[in-house]
């Protein structure tokens, strides 16, 4: 571990939740403006989180809490591997591990909403995982390594080589940032048919842990989106910020324009996009490499 990666991990561990909650605050304000509302305060997501941790801790059973905490731990852990410049496949596998613990936590309550949310989350994982793995493959083919430190040390932004992967990855982001149309498992909107889905039986600090994990996870996903733009040139960081801002805006737009879809549509669209955008780009990259 170099000094540089040490610093970036520390920044990630300390500031990621704060930065992402500001981002989601902006997102909520933008969404509200699109709908002609005023919207909450900028720091509202952050205050929500703080408040949750000050509440009384309750749980439905003895294993629920530890499973959610394990989810939070592994979500932070996988992000830390990423920001330390580690192997991107390991990051993805660790993230899967984290998701598994959240799903088990939801299953453990043995309640209808939680369980249906858990299965939808599983379905979402199944829908987006081929794309995330393919994206890693794409980085490997175009940068010659799975390691984040090597991926960002190129001279040209990788998006030029992998536009197909980027399109596919944006579809993953729609799922991971829990935007409609694909917020099937749990949603930030009160009017959804399965209420809070797999987080439905979490409350107080336990729910706080799951939200905290979500913030870290979002930081990781946006970081991965940034990989498409970051190069060895220091100034490329500005491109990353612009890209993230654009992505977040497009996500809000999607959130507002599209109605919710059924899970079959989710699976089909995700897999079709993965197959054509990801697979097509993969063929081209493999051919170039030979």
């Amino acid at each position, binding site marked *: 571990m170099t000094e540089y990666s040490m610093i970036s991990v520390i920044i990630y561990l300390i500031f990621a939740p704060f930065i992402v909650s500001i981002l989601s605050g902006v997102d909520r304000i933008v969404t509200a403006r699109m709908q002609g509302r005023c919207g909450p305060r900028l720091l509202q997501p952050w205050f929500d989180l703080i408040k949750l941790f000050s509440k*009384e*801790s309750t*749980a*439905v*059973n*003895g*294993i629920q809490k*530890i*499973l959610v*905490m*394990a989810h939070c*731990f*592994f979500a932070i852990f996988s992000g830390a*591997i990423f920001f330390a410049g*580690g*192997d991107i*496949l*390991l990051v993805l*596998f*660790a993230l*899967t*591990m984290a998701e*598994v613990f959240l*799903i*088990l936590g*939801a299953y*453990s*309550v*043995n*309640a*209808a*909403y*939680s*369980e249906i949310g858990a*299965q939808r989350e*599983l*379905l979402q*994982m*199944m*829908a987006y*995982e*081929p*794309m995330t*793995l*393919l994206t890693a*493959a794409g980085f*490997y*083919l175009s940068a010659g390594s799975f390691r984040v430190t090597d991926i960002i040390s190129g001279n040209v932004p990788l998006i030029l080589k992998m536009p197909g992967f980027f399109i596919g990855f944006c579809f993953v982001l729609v799922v991971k940032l829990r935007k409609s149309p694909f917020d099937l498992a749990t949603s930030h909107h009160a009017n959804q048919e399965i*209420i809070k889905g797999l987080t*439905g*039986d979490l*409350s107080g600090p336990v729910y706080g842990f799951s939200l905290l994990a979500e913030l870290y996870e979002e930081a990781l996903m946006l970081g991965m989106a940034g990989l498409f733009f970051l190069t060895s040139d220091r100034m490329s960081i500005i491109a990353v910020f612009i890209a993230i801002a654009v992505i977040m805006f497009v996500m809000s737009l999607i959130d507002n324009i599209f109605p919710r879809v059924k899970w*079959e549509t989710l699976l089909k669209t995700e*897999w079709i996009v*993965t*197959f054509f955008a990801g*697979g097509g780009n*993969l063929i081209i990259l*493999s051919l170039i490499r*030979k």
Partner: protein
Amino acid sequence: MSVLSFLILFPFFIAFVLFFLKKDSLVRSFIVFIGAAGELSLSVYFAIDSYLYHDIEMGTFYLSETHDLDMLIAALELCLMLVVFFLAVKYKKYPVMILSALGTIPALYMDLTGKSTTMASHIKVDHLTVIMVLVVGVVGSLICMYAVGYIRDYHRHHKEFRDRSGYFLSLLFAFLGAMMGLISSDNLTWMFFFWEVTSVCSFLLIGYSRTPEAVHNSFRALWMNLLGGCAFMAAIIFCIYVMEITNISQLLVYASLPTVTVFPVAMLAFAALTKSAQMPFSGWLLGAMVAPTPSSALLHSATMVKAGVYLLLRLSPMMCGTYAGTMVAVIGGFTFFAASLLAITVSDGKKVLAYSTVSNLGLITAAAGCGMEEAVWAGIMLLIFHSVTKSMMFMSVGAYENSTGSRDVEDMHGMIVRYPRLAFIMTIGIFGMSVVPMGMCVAKWAALRAFIDSGSVYLTLFLCFGSASTIFYWIKWLGKIFSVSRGSERHKDNVPAVEWIAMYPLAILAMVLCLVYPLISALAVIPYIQNAFSGSVSRLVTAAFESGSAGGEGIIAAISTEDFIIMGVMLICICLLPVAMKMVNSVQERQVLSYMSGFNSGNDRSFYDSHGEEKDQWLSNWYMNGLFGEKRLLPFCLVLSSAFVISMMTVCAIGGLFI
């Protein structure tokens, strides 16, 4: 040599003794115990002995002059054929007789005329043999031990079947012996003999209960495997008459001449595909679940299907970029993906396991067909991890069935509270199959990298999609185990001690393997690959692989030392979870009811419906039958894969014979 011959003959001897002990008795259990423990320690001793006292680098050769043994084998082959004939006539399944004769008669002829042997040795021991001996010896013996307890309970629950448990146990041991013979044979005709023994043994095991379904499934297994046997025979005839060689290692010398070897390699690969239950031959393995669980465990984990992938891994230096290799890789990748989708749609625990076996074997097959060093590394690792984990899963499902009368995943609801010890085994098994710090996923990771390196886009796509659906069916099963109904209590499991003796070591082994696999890799897998690929046209040696094996930095190719340490940390964190749970729960807190839109009737198990009446809630997993149901997807997959195999085999046969 003495150790090895003992290793092969000892299980046959135990099988012979058990065959005559029809009644369940202490003596019989003791003999099984001695047999299993003996075979286990023999295989470990054999591994150590080969490393310390023999030249394992180049392979140790035994038995070059074997006229008498060849006669014995010819006689036994005839017996096998007669057994098949007898049962075929008894159940009026005549076509298998033709297949059996087609395979056996040429073998008899060559044995009797001495064509089947040159001065080359019949037995060869190298790194891969040692790995396989350990897998078969350790996992197989533990399954035999488990079988003693299981079969007793089985007949207690199934009074309708005649108790032939002596015969059953004897078959299990014969299977082990045949497997040991198969993996140490270098002579193709000998290998063919053991190959046919495993086919017939599995046929007899599947038909154990003699129900119409069992008979039907057993004959399906038989004809598929005999068909593979015929292909094997065709390869042998070609090798002997055209190439004038008799051994696998001699065939491998021709690796750089793919035009010469295309016919025998394609035929052997075809045989391996039938044995490893790849599509379109997956049907026999799924049908095999009618047999008592220990035989399923044996067929799925340590023996039978592993014989197929073992042969493919042996042949893999000849696969890279050839037609046979493409056939194997495509079929393997396709089976991996399709079987994992099918596994989502079934709820019978053993059937999920069966599809998962087919799927995982598909990945090993694809890795072998890819024919690159890294892929073969991943394939061998998958083989090891899969054997340990899958046998454990079968055992725990079998034990659960004997305790509760059901093996349906839906009935495993809340198992973690009701049967915590079995749930513990199953959890390790499922984690081992699906998530990262555990073995299977690590090997999958290496396979992914190898597929990308080899530039085969289709394999990369199959792997990415397949591993996503794999997670789905495992985690929903795990979720069922973890759903705790309020107020459920621990039940007493009626699992006999001898079954725990088999399951606990496997569970511990599954965990320990995750920490010591770099050692296995450095001691056996990488040396084997270096030897196997040294003479071949390995066009795709990646820089990472070279630095990984030579520099000492990074124990293996795909996974660097740093990644290995990170995964070790993850594993330790997971192991600490139960401790952490104790600590978290030591703080007393309020327990609340689960959320049911405010209509929870107060016990978390029922709710008030719109008439105000109390109704029980029933939660079920998703099976998505509308999307990937067996009826919908399976025929399509079978037709597609059959068409592909037939056309590829035709190309290889015409190309190999006439061009």
